[in-house]
């Protein structure tokens, strides 16, 4: 294993961003995000609290999660320098690596439709030079070394739970507190932590193809689980296939490079995205065979559907770090199960499951309602559950019941996408 690594000394960095510009000069203009960036603590400069900076690009981790989990195998490690390198023409632009990296190193470039990232200035390293950012830090805060280093040591206060053994050594502050100052000047000043808007990686509006695709997965699985007589009608089969086809098309829409879609199943060993695509393909193919060629054992279809739902849920696992409960009320597996119970008219189990999901929803929302813009969604979500219950036992209008139930599920899933979030050093060091 290469011992090349960055050294960052918090005592010396004044946040000048020369490293950012050094990188741009060496590697070309980077937009919208620069490969290297400075993250500052205490951005409001609250008096009495310290302020320090971190300069971060790629830390070329020993257990690089971007490389491990890339569905398209678009990363490789350089034998000579240990650099984790991104292979642009292998990248499908799924952005999954941007969720996996705790240091926010891969940056999505919407113009190219692929991610891009720090190369450790490999060509410079091979010429015996230091990476550009480290050779041009005016205060010497950012440096480079190839001396032996224990990459397994938990580094500093980047409170990421799993450490992928980054190639960086951070020298901590010698003086932990900020400057002594006359705090009476600031008495009575109240501060609210800045809203971390820039950290939200997705929203339902932007990710609508994925939102619809995952709901389709839940619906199709439920239909297979339910396996009513309904399913063996030619007409119904064609609806099933039609919906599946729409799902397949939608699932490619969020990719930056759709023409490389086929690469998405290359990493079955580690990537839940590869598995999701594989299971979806198998599920649809086996269903087709079942409908048009010969009977397939029903449990096989049910198993494939379940695996598909689980892989969809697992896919979003890295983004769930912020949620209070590990299970989200709008996991696709739960939605599929709810639809199944709904279709099979298992009213009691349906009410129990929906009740649990409602509790999960409320638990998650307690204390988060500070964002007043979202109260409407919460009210509608809760109302839809009770409306569904009411309509279920009133036996009035089937359509009203279906609409109420479906609307509730869609709202919950919208909330799921709105709440997706991934760790970034920027969030992690902003703890006051």
């Amino acid at each position, binding site marked *: 294993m290469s011992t090349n690594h960055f050294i960052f000394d918090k005592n010396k960095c004044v946040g*000048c*961003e020369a490293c950012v510009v050094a990188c741009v000069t060496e590697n070309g203009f980077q937009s919208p995000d620069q490969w290297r960036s400075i993250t500052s603590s205490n951005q409001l*400069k609250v*008096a009495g609290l310290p302020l320090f900076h971190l300069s971060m690009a790629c830390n070329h981790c020993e257990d690089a999660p971007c490389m491990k989990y890339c569905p398209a195998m678009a990363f490789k490690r350089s034998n000579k320098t240990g650099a984790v390198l991104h292979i642009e023409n292998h990248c499908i632009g799924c952005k999954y690596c941007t969720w996996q990296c705790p240091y926010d190193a891969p940056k999505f470039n919407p113009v190219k439709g692929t991610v891009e990232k720090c190369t450790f200035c490999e060509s410079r390293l091979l010429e015996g030079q230091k990476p550009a950012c480290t050779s*041009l830090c*005016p205060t010497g805060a950012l440096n480079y070394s190839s001396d032996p280093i224990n990459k397994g040591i938990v580094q500093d206060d980047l409170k990421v739970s799993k450490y992928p053994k980054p190639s960086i050594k951070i020298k901590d502050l010698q003086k932990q507190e900020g*400057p002594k100052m*006359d705090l009476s000047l600031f008495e009575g000043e109240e501060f609210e932590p800045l809203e971390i808007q820039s950290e939200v990686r997705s929203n339902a509006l932007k990710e609508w193809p994925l939102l619809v695709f995952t709901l389709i997965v839940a619906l199709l699985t439920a239909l297979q689980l339910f396996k009513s007589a309904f399913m063996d009608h030619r007409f119904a089969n064609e609806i099933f296939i039609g919906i599946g086809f729409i799902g397949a098309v939608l699932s490619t829409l969020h990719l930056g490079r759709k023409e490389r879609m086929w690469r998405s199943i290359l990493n079955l060993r580690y990537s839940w995205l590869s598995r999701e695509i594989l299971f979806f393909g198998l599920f649809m193919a086996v269903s087709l065979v079942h409908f048009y060629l010969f009977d397939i054992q029903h449990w096989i279809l049910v198993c494939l559907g379940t695996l598909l739902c689980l892989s969809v849920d697992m896919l979003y696992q890295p983004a769930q770090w912020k949620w209070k409960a590990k299970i989200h009320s709008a996991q696709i597996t739960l939605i599929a199960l709810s639809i199944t119970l709904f279709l099979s008219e298992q009213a009691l189990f349906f009410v129990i499951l929906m009740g649990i999901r409602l509790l999960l929803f409320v638990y998650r929302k307690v204390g988060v309602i500070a964002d007043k813009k979202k109260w409407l969604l919460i009210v509608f979500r809760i109302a839809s559950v009770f409306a569904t219950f009411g309509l279920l036992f009133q036996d009035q209008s089937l359509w009203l019941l279906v609409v109420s139930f479906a609307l509730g599920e869609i709202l919950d899933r919208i909330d799921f996408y709105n709440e997706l979030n991934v760790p970034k050093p920027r969030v992690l060091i902003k703890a006051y």
Partner: protein
Amino acid sequence: MPLYNTVCPRNCYSTCSFKVKVEEGKLISIEAQDLNKSTPEGPCIKGLSYIERQYSPDRILYPLQKHNGQFNRISWDKAFELIINKLKYYKDQYGSHSVMYYASSGMSGLLNGISANFWRMYGGVTTVYGNLCWPAGLEATKLTLGENKHNIPTDIENAKLIVLWGKNPAESNIHQMVPIEKAQRKGAKLVVIDPRRTPSSERADLLLQPKSGTDAILALAVAKLIIANNQHDKNFIQKHVKGFDEFSQSLESISIEGASAECGIPVVFIDELATLIGTTKPMTLVPGYGMQRFSNGGQTTRCLLALSVITGNIGKKGACWHYANLQSYVFDSVKEPESYYPGELDKPNRRTIPTAKLGESMLKLIDPELKMAWVERGNPITQNPDSNATIKAFKKLDYVVVVEQFMTDTAQEADLLLPAKTLFEQSDIVGSYWNPYVQLKQKVCEPPKQVKPETEIYYHLAKKMGFDDEDIKNNIPEPTDEAIATHLNEYVKKFEELSMERLKQGPILAPGLEEIAFSDAHFKTPSGKIELYSEQARKRWNIDELPKYLPLDKPDEKYPLFLMSPNTKNRIHSQFGNCATIKALDPMPVASISPKDAKCRNIKHGDRIKVYNSQGELYIKVQLDYSMRPGNVVIFNGYWNQEGGSPNLLTKGRETDIGHGTAFHDTKVEIVKATAK
């Protein structure tokens, strides 16, 4: 690939040495040059943007003539013809003083003198005296110590106490943070005095935030305590200081409580500062330019300097008054600040107006009125006080020629725009007011398209004006690289330590350099001693012989907030903000205010506000700063009006008490949540 040594010629303390890699005439990259011990790690964010800046699509590459508000490309022949006709016409009709030559600090170098030579040959024009930046402090230092020089930058490592007073090196002189950090690691204490909590103060032990313009009373209170505690250096004072007794007596009228109320620093903190300065040796006091950009700036600087003087922190390792180091300006016959003063150069030829009141003075000039202006290396519309008056004055002119690289606010006012060279396109010799090196800024590539260095423009103009050939030969080098090298060599050959060949290898320590300034205890004052009591102060500037605190003008209730317009790390004055890389990091100007000042005006973080006073108004976004002393609005200077506004829309043209500096920081404003714009 060849690497050329060169130097950043911006108006900045650091004056970094760096190396530039060139491939087939194209600049490829910038590398650090560690032969310069003051800037061994390489240039800052701005210097690293040079490659982008060199090839910016926004660069002006042709002479451009304005026609119906649009700039159109014209040939040099046509441009020369236009200029010659104007110059001849105005001289004949109104006299040569109807033409103003305005040059500022956009690019330093010896060749800049050639521009002045041309205007002298033309018959003498109207120019400015004074300076926008630092002369109050320069004059204060000169009155007291006789000269402006300080220890080499790395000597700060030897200090046990470092006081940054009104200076924010983390943004304006980043390389100074290196020896400061080294000293801190060896146990030195760092004190910062600034109404803002600057990036330089983050690792400080103590941050004192006085009310704007009251630094002098704080310094005098500290001096009083040091003397009362018997911590002054009696031996040093007896040997080297003139006027200590008078100074000490003058402090009797000061009460610590009164001073505390005046400057807004609690007595315990004044005590703490006094104890630190009184008991920690050696101390390096690093005054910035911030606290001297007031109408009492010169006296304020004298009061601060008194602290170094009475504690004997002059002329020793780690003990220094670190204001300005002009030791590398070995070629100047008249050094700053005198070179700024009216009448010091070209007495009979020149008519001068104060740069601190540029717009107002231009408008007032009669006999003759100004008709034409030539601007180079400067952007007065955003950088001089009272932008509105400056714009008005430029609009009133018949003809404006601007030599520029980019379409600045001033360039927009031009009738004729001439493309300017970059630092890579002509060799020159550059000194520094901080580091001790003489450096060669090497030509490493040809000027692109129709760009011509100013010396070449003037050469052709001089020929076409029909100036005497012998006169031209003596004043303006021919437009060839060899002629420029010969011209520079005329300066260099006077010093045996220097040669053009050696300068190409890297920076050279200034001949005659004193690493520890004043270590010989030789002070070029009238008395030969350090003068706390200065007759010159009274004679030249009509201020008190002793360092005194003079409160600023009575506050105007309509405008209760001080406007500070400091420098940001992302620009040097109005340069660099248009680089795409820097723009991505710093897209628009903001006004930083304290949450207290925001709350009582119902302003929230991110709101758009109007900043206004009787001078003008500026619409700008608010950023709350929870460590800013209430009562201040901070807007970095250098933003162009076309990108959201320069704080100079609000500043008043006013000179400092001494040195003909500019009292930008006397400006008071009010803010209100914006309703329109």
